[in-house]
């Protein structure tokens, strides 16, 4: 069976003022439908760049990216992106922010009432029905991020792309949203690619952890399969030796084999 997302020999070179900067080289990755992939690595290793290639926000300098056997050319609503800093439009309410996406994707085929029902349903899924008519400035960081997730989910994307979605949140809110994300993904059977620098998050959520080497010219160092049974329970995992083994394997990669490069200055 062919993989759902195929990345073949992808590389990314940026033209900067100081000349060419190779961010990624030789990226080869196949992702199955319904799989949850975590991209982890030190900052500046190009994991967000890789996500943006799949999102279509950047064009690979070399190589091919395929989604369901079609080449990825430019961004599109079949790949829902949740941005690092929520990226909600501050002049639209939570409902309107989600509705904008719903209208774009289903506006041609459905009535207004159906579109509104869709929007309400997805806001209920992330537990924000009570805040639907609030502006982003009036709700907390965790709630904003949930609206961002709702907006991406509402498009019923083939792939859900998450760029450090919980990075800016406090630990308790983050844990809460991780649990919710697990439930949502289990319910929708979404294919997910998530960028993170949190080892626990990666082990808890994903089916495979893609570990990236340090940049420049970063590539995939190792891929670790997380064969913990689902549904996963945060508290039970804390006593699971397998969880700790996987966790230390990622830590081993990050801090022993890919030591953070010392700054030249």
């Amino acid at each position: 069976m062919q993989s759902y997302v195929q990345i073949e020999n992808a590389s990314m070179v940026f033209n900067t003022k100081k000349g060419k900067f190779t961010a990624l080289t030789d990226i080869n990755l196949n992702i199955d439908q319904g799989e949850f992939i975590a991209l982890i690595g030190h900052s500046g290793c190009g994991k967000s760049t890789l996500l943006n290639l799949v999102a279509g926000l950047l064009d690979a300098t070399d190589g091919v990216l395929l989604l369901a056997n079609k080449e990825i050319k430019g961004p599109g609503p079949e790949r829902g992106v949740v941005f690092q800093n929520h990226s909600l439009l501050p002049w639209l309410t939570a409902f309107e922010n989600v509705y904008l996406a719903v209208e774009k994707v289903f506006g041609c085929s459905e009535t207004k009432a159906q579109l509104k029902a869709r929007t309400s349903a997805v806001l209920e899924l992330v537990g924000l029905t009570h805040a639907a008519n609030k502006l982003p400035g009036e709700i907390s960081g965790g709630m904003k991020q949930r609206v961002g997730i709702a907006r991406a989910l509402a498009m019923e994307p083939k792939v859900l792309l998450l760029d450090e979605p919980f990075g800016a949140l406090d630990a308790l809110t983050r844990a809460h949203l991780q649990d919710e994300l697990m439930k949502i993904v289990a319910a929708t059977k979404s294919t997910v690619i998530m960028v993170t620098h949190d080892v626990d998050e990666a082990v808890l959520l994903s089916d495979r952890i893609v570990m990236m080497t340090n940049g420049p010219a970063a590539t995939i160092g190792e891929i670790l399969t997380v064969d913990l049974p689902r549904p996963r329970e945060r508290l039970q995992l804390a006593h699971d030796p397998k969880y700790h083994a996987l966790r230390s394997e990622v830590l081993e990669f990050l801090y022993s084999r890919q030591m953070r490069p010392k700054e030249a200055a």
Partner: protein
Amino acid sequence: MNAVTINDRSLKEIMNAPETLALEPSNDPMPTARRTPLLETETGKRFIEGVLNLAKAAFPPLLGILFFVALWALVANTNKSIPGPVETWGAAVVLFSDPFYNNGPNDMGIGWNILNSLYRVGLGFGAAAIIGIPLGFMIGRFQFLNQMMSPIISILRPVSPLAWLPIGLLVLQKAEPASIWVIFISSIWPMVLNTAAGVQRIPQDYMNVARVLNLSEFKVFTKILFPAVLPYVLTGVRLSIGVAWLVIVAAEMLTGGVGIGFWVWDEWNNLNVAHIIIAIFVVGIVGLLLEQGLMLLAKRFSYD
């Protein structure tokens, strides 16, 4: 002799009048004290607190105005050609008691003069907004256009507004459109530059959202570009209207016709200094109102 005694008495009156004004809030508890039971209720306490807060907020500005009026009175007292505050106040009362009389084009009420100036500012400024704001959007959106326009704008922007008047008179042949032209050309720049800066500063995140959603150009404009740039546009509008109102007085002095600027010049020829001082206050207060109105509007569209 008579005038001097009036002046002396007026000085005392002025020195006293604002003081009583400043003390007024502290007098306020007196009437509430009469209704003693009300005072002990929550509303009564809140009322007193509100009055005290108002007094606290009003005291510094009132003190400033008091000092200003005192200084004015002092100057007027030493230099007899300048009318003092009371004399000016009297002239203003006469002037504003009949603001809309019309004895031919050279003798119209102050209200007509103000409205005529506002009309010219409105036309010139309106035309500048209609051209300047879309131009700013395009300059902000297209780098090529930006590079093309930037030398022209850099050269034309610092030119004194009145330097444009001869060109306007030459091309338009008439004083009225020439002064509107001066308003137009001097108030267009802040709107062009602020709008362009606003478009250039739209966070990349918002544009990424637009790209991921594949929004149409129309949706991008109405849902993202326009609301994101609106605060910048309003800043430009506010600066522009300030400039326009500054320039109109000078332009009207040169072109004549009915208007607050020409009225100042006319009163100078009549040696009616009190009216000139009144005109200064009128120009200042109208400018303040225009600015404050736009500030209120800008607050409505701020999402930070």
